[in-house]
């Protein structure tokens, strides 16, 4: 609720931890780029002439103009040139030319901050084409931060027999008038669908009533109807938490488990990954995997959501789709349909979610109490913050996020 706390989060949590920047398939060729803001700071991600992916601060060393203002595209030539005063940089950020060079002879430009050119993001790591960055020079290492939750990325990638995913189909962008934490909590809140999504599920059921019972259901209805499962389903679906706020819901089964697989695709996966691994990949369709605090994966429809905090009460949610390479077209169709049905600004499922996040944002202004309840299924032993299994409806999945929040919002950068 407080602007000061939001600014603290940007300075600490969103700078000291590993934030999802994008996917390498968005920039397949040298010169390809995309831009984004991380912790309120402009960042440019590009593929250099040697084919290496780099992330630079998108700010001219001269007078601070954002150098690349397009959202994505391909850079012409071999240099990044600021349109303001023509300072030019190599794709690795090195300053190579600037006009009126004589005027700098007796200055110490080359020894100054400006002489360093465009700075790379301090921490940078690509995991199976998922690009992450950490703004702070110091902080937790990539593998220490994510640990075993990275296996959920493997599950998505290995759905391709050749282990390759391709971002396609455009990005749906929602702006929501709520704090980012309310959105992120809800991703692994399996208790809300019963009440919050009743309106969409009941409407789907009502429309289908007129259909003969044996008629095949349209893909869209197949994806909406499972939201109508009962509490026992979500409780039994299973959850798992990991250190640093990461979590999974639907470890045993999920609303995505019922999606059928084609025999030839199953055979291709078994040939590529072996019988055991192929079965594991196909049977694990977690509802959601949260890579705290910026990324949520949906392994079965092959979509991801990216959480971009804009202000204390404003959050942008991006929904991207993967084409699973060397897999049937149906997988991509499922991704497109799912993100359109559930993550679009016109989604009949999301409208009730978004309304409720915004209702929380305004409800929490109440001074009746400063507390919310996340008591469900608390056990003292969870305070050790180790990897542990839980029911699908345990609010540990949410408490775990806030414990990471408390650890990484420390102003002095030290872990608590």
């Amino acid at each position, binding site marked *: 609720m407080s602007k000061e706390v939001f600014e603290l989060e940007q300075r600490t949590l969103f700078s000291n931890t590993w934030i999802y920047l994008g996917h390498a398939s968005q920039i397949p060729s040298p010169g390809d780029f995309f831009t984004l803001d991380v912790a309120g700071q402009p960042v440019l991600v590009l593929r250099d002439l040697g084919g290496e992916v780099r992330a630079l601060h998108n700010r001219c060393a001269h007078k601070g103009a954002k150098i690349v203002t397009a959202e994505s595209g391909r850079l012409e030539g071999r240099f990044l040139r600021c349109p303001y005063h023509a300072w030019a940089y190599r794709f690795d950020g090195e300053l190579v030319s600037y006009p009126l060079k004589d005027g700098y002879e007796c200055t110490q430009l080359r020894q100054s901050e400006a002489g360093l050119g465009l700075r790379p993001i301090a921490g940078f790591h690509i995991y199976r084409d998922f690009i992450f960055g950490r703004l702070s020079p110091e902080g937790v290492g990539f593998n220490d931060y994510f640990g075993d939750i990275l296996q959920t990325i493997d599950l998505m990638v290995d759905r391709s027999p050749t282990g390759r995913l391709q971002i396609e189909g455009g990005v749906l962008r929602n702006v*929501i008038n709520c704090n980012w934490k309310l959105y992120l909590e809800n991703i692994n809140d399996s208790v809300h669908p019963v009440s919050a999504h009743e309106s*969409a599920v009941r409407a789907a059921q009502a429309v289908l009533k007129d259909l003969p019972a044996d008629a095949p259901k349209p893909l869209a209805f197949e994806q909406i109807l499972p939201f109508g499962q009962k509490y026992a389903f979500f409780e039994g679906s299973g959850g798992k938490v990991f250190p640093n706020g990461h979590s999974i819901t639907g470890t045993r089964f999920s609303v995505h488990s019922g999606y059928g697989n084609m025999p030839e695709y199953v055979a291709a996966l078994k040939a590529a990954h072996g019988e055991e691994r192929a079965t594991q990949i196909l049977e694990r369709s977690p509802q959601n995997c949260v890579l705290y605090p910026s990324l949520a994966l949906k392994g079965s429809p092959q979509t991801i959501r990216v959480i971009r905090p804009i202000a204390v009460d404003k959050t942008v949610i991006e929904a991207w789709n993967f084409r699973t390479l060397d897999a049937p077209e149906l997988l991509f169709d499922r991704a497109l349909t799912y993100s359109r049905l559930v993550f679009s600004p016109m989604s009949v499922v999301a409208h009730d979610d978004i309304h409720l996040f915004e209702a929380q944002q305004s409800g929490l202004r109440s001074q009746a109490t400063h507390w919310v309840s996340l008591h469900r299924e608390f056990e003292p032993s969870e305070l050790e913050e180790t990897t542990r299994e839980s029911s699908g409806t345990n609010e540990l999945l949410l408490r775990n996020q806030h414990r990471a929040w408390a650890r990484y919002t420390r102003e002095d950068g030290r872990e608590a």
Partner: protein
Amino acid sequence: MVTNEIEQFLYAEAAMLDDGRYEEWLALFADDGRYWVPLQGSSQSEESKCNSIADEDKMMLALRIERLRAGIAPSQQPKSCMQHVLQRPMAVDEAFLNPAVSVLRTPFTYAESRGDDMVTLHGHYIHKLVRTEGVLQIALKRVNLVNASSRLPMIQLFP
């Protein structure tokens, strides 16, 4: 050429939405009719594999209408209402492809209000109208938003 009948049809269609006469509106669609809000606005081709903000057949439209009718959606407390403002439609010449289809382009402004909040959208419609047993029907209503690719707030009704 845009006949008076076609022009009045488009105005009446928008008025049905503005008045909340959804069943009547749905009946304007042909059986295989489509309501489409492409994610890339007017630049998205019909064959493109790009996603859409909405891409509904008659069944999905019926779902939306049923949800609004049932009155249990939290996001409809308070209810949303809308106002379309249309410019006169212009004929898009595709008659050489299929003389039985009329294609119209209609610039619009759309306001959707809920409580004290208002969402305003701008763009143009492409309507493909067909005549089935003498009755004019919507084969396609395509909504080309000028800011389709931007971040958008929730849009609950029918731009």
